[in-house]
């Protein structure tokens, strides 16, 4: 572990960048010698305030001419910082290697929303792009004054502003402002988070001039990871730190009524922290904290078991549960009339289970409270908001708390990392020492916030001529927001709820994101109350592509059912009803690249136990379009499916880094396949029983696809949209449609585990 001797240290960044941001106001230079001095600069008022409407909040030119880009979002493993660095370098006309993107430290970046909805490039990069363009504009104007050449006669090469006609007339960025702050206001839209936008006067470059954007530049941090030169959040430690562990009840909803501290008296330094229903232990050594958590004798309250009998009984519960909120998102035509006069109606119902983030390592955070200030180190996706949450938990003003993001053990939404931060705050406040919390595996899988379980009903009306004249899609589900994703409120954390803050479950679901046109169409969702109204291991929150996989499993399986009912090719059916040219383009591209042969499903030319099939599914996600063709092998005897090949056509507008995009898509497809084939949170009446990798299996490497072909459609003229989640959502339907093609059997419940497939085929 890295021992941090000074709480303000940037362990990771000092590796990435030795130059530091030696930046002070134009005209009032103050010598600062390291990046660690940012706090000191703030204290001295030398830097313009860290607010969204200041250029200095995003871009600094260091004394050596290198560029620091301060980013209020972070990389979750897809190389976002590289892509954003490319956008910054492009606009500034500096070599890519000269830019360092410094991510999510509340002391150096404004709140751009953290990792959220694949907006890293779409809104986060967009802001850094306009900031960098403005910085270049300002630098060119400064150079014009300095060298006496009008700005329109100047250009920039590798960070040197020079006359177009006489390159000897020049001034470098370092000469112009190196080591001093920009003092340039931006036109901030007064939003924070994902919506923050603050352009300057400059227009970004036209794509025709791109030299860096569009290139496959590698991540520098992979070498740091494989040579162990980079800390994860789990590796951070500070002087005087203790290790904390939380203790969860055997029956969800039970609270401790008696705690026997003497039962751990023999463990050196072990202490109990018990406040209301919150129970944890700390010890100087990590193993001692783990032992103490196991050994502590606790009497729990007699809570009524809150859950249905098992995961299968869940769907009946959803069907019968009262509707808390109903929302029709889209409606056109007269649906009821169309169904009344239909020649034929096709309908189906689909089911999707609770799923866990099950991150590679359980949630971890470190909180230090010292001299009226606090620091949070967290790998969660919302550093700025988490800072606010920890401040609330500590009863401190947010400006006295600093949040520092350090890469964590995987993050796919609002995971247990968000709870770990709050638990660490409670423990640190109670024991008066810095506390590092890392959960054990049973908590990481058993008690993380879950992706919601759902049922989906689809129906279509067909007229006498065989045309689909009406379509309705309705989901009934647990809300996706029992706890909100941004971590700023104690009621959104286990610790807050255990200490008596009531759960505020919000109502949110969604409808299919597609552009199928039907004369009569209605899409809607309904939410039901949570199974347990406090500190529940089945509380819901955002899990990668929140509710996208479940909705599009259902909607795109149903499109296939419709095609089969009409005896037409599944690609043909989609193309009949899609009107958006980019949607049509991805469907066609996936079909063409995969060698799709037009025919209805299922195929009827196979005998024997080993059969193969192909299936297509398509979806949009916040502007990105994806179509996937899956090819599967089915062993009818064992029920084992091998999703052997995927062909993915992907259009996210302008592509910043093609290599990074391809790897991002591969990760989506594999994780999406895992969620489709294996993942289902198991529980009994008392508690979640998926507590490790045996009880919550994921896709094994022996089951990895043989091939993932990616057709990345580049549209440089369009603004870039997200790629972090879009290609996950059509995966389940593509696989399910391929199983149907191979076998003629439609499986309407995920996961497609061998037992379930075998049962369906028998």
């Amino acid at each position, binding site marked *: *572990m*890295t*021992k941090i001797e000074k709480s303000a240290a940037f362990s990771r960044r000092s590796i990435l960048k030795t130059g530091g941001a030696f930046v002070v106001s134009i005209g009032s230079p103050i010598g600062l010698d390291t990046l660690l001095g940012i706090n000191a600069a703030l204290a001295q008022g030398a830097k313009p305030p860290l607010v969204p409407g200041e250029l200095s909040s995003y871009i600094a030119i260091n004394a050596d001419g290198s560029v620091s880009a301060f980013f209020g979002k972070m990389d*979750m*493993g*897809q*190389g976002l910082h590289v892509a954003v660095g490319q956008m910054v370098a492009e606009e500034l006309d500096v070599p890519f290697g000269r830019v360092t993107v410094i991510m999510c430290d509340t002391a150096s970046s404004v709140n751009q929303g953290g990792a959220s909805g694949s907006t890293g490039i779409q809104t986060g990069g967009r802001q850094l792009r306009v900031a960098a363009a403005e910085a270049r504009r300002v630098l060119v104007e400064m150079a014009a004054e300095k060298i006496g050449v009008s700005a329109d006669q100047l250009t920039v090469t590798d960070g040197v502003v020079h006359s177009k006609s006489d390159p000897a007339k020049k001034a470098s960025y370092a000469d112009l402002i190196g080591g001093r702050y920009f003092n340039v206001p931006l036109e901030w839209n007064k939003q924070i988070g994902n919506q923050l936008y603050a352009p300057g006067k400059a227009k970004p470059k036209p794509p025709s001039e791109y030299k860096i954007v569009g290139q496959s530049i*590698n*991540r520098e*941090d*992979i*070498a740091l*990871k*494989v*040579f*162990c*030169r*980079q800390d*994860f959040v*789990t*590796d951070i430690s500070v002087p005087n730190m203790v290790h904390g562990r939380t203790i969860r009840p055997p029956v969800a909803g039970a609270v401790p009524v008696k705690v026997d501290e003497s039962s751990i008296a023999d463990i050196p330094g072990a202490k109990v922290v018990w406040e209301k229903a919150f129970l944890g232990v700390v010890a100087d*050594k*990590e*193993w001692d904290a783990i032992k103490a958590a196991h050994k502590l004798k606790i009497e729990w309250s007699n809570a009524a078991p809150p859950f249905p009998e098992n995961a299968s009984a869940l769907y009946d519960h959803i069907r019968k549960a009262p509707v808390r909120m109903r929302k029709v998102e889209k409606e056109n035509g007269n649906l009821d009339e169309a169904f009344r006069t239909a020649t034929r109606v096709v309908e189906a119902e689909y089911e999707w289970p609770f799923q866990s983030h099950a*991150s*590679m*390592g*359980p949630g971890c955070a470190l909180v230090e409270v010292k001299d009226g200030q606090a620091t949070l180190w967290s790998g969660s996706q919302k550093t700025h908001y988490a800072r606010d949450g920890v401040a609330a938990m500590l009863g401190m003003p947010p400006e006295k708390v600093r949040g520092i993001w350090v*890469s*964590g*053990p*995987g*993050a*796919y939404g609002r995971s247990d990392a968000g709870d770990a931060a709050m638990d660490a705050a409670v423990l640190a406040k109670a024991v008066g020492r810095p506390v590092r919390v*890392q959960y*054990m*595996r049973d908590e990481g899988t058993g008690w993380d916030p879950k992706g919601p379980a759902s049922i989906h009903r689809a129906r279509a009306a067909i007229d006498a001529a065989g045309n689909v004249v009406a379509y309705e899609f309705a989901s009934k589900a647990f809300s996706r927001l029992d706890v909100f994703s941004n971590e700023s409120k104690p009621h959104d954390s286990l610790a807050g709820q255990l200490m008596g803050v009531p759960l505020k479950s919000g109502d949110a679901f969604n409808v299919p994101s597609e552009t199928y046109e039907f004369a009569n169409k209605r899409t809607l969702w309904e939410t039901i109350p949570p199974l347990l109204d406090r500190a529940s291991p089945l509380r819901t929150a955002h899990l990668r592509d929140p509710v996208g996989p479940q909705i599009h499993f259902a909607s795109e399986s149903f499109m296939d059912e419709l095609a089969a009912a009409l005896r037409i090719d599944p690609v043909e059916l989609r193309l009949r009803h899609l009107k958006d040219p980019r949607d049509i383009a991805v469907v066609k591209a996936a079909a063409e690249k995969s060698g799709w042969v037009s025919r209805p499903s299922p195929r009827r030319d196979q005998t024997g136990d080993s059969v193969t099939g192909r299936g297509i599914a398509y979806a949009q996600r916040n502007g990105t379009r994806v179509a996937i063709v899956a090819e599967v092998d089915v062993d009818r005897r064992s029920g084992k499916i091998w999703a052997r090949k995927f062909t993915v056509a992907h259009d996210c507008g302008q592509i910043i880094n093609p*290599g*990074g995009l391809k*790897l991002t898509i*591969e*990760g*989506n*497809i*594999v*994780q*999406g*396949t*895992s969620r489709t084939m294996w993942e289902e949170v198991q529980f009994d009446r008392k508690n979640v029983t998926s507590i*490790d*990798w*045996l009880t919550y299996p*994921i*896709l*094994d*490497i*022996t089951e*990895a*696809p043989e091939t*993932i072909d990616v057709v990345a459609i580049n549209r440089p003229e369009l603004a870039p949209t997200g790629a972090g989640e879009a290609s996950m959502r059509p995966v389940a339907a593509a696989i399910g449609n391929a199983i149907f093609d191979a076998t003629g059997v439609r499986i309407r419940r995920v996961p497609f585990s061998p037992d379930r497939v075998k049962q369906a085929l028998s």
Partner: protein
Amino acid sequence: MAQKYSLNVNGKVHSVDADPDMPLLYALRGDLGLNNPHFGCGVDQCGACTVHLDGRPIRSCTTPISTVRDAKVVTLAGLGSPSSPHPLQTAWVEEQVSQCGYCTNGWIMTAAAFLRDKKKPTEAEIKNALAGLKCRCGTHMAILRAVKRAAAMMG
């Protein structure tokens, strides 16, 4: 009760006071201050804590420190360095494998022992050798490319 143990890690000998049942992982991370391996599951199911014990990949999260004795422990940091990388480390960078990267120990340490003993493996042999290891980000395709690349480098 705590006892004194001598550990040979990456060629250096360290002395650690620990309970006999404390897993090696906590000695490496807590007492020796190594930022690898990682805690992933604590129950022998994921591989994030993998180290070599006399060249054999083991899960340090379930290996009591008292059973290590004089065996030589090598961690990912001891496998190679930027100036003298193991072929798998080179391949990992070239194939840009990692997403979050937390699982890296398991894959590289397991594959390093496998490739040392098995030259020119088939894809099926590689997959079987790595079965059971976890990567939650889903980098399986890149992992396989990297192991094949390293296998080619190792002849």
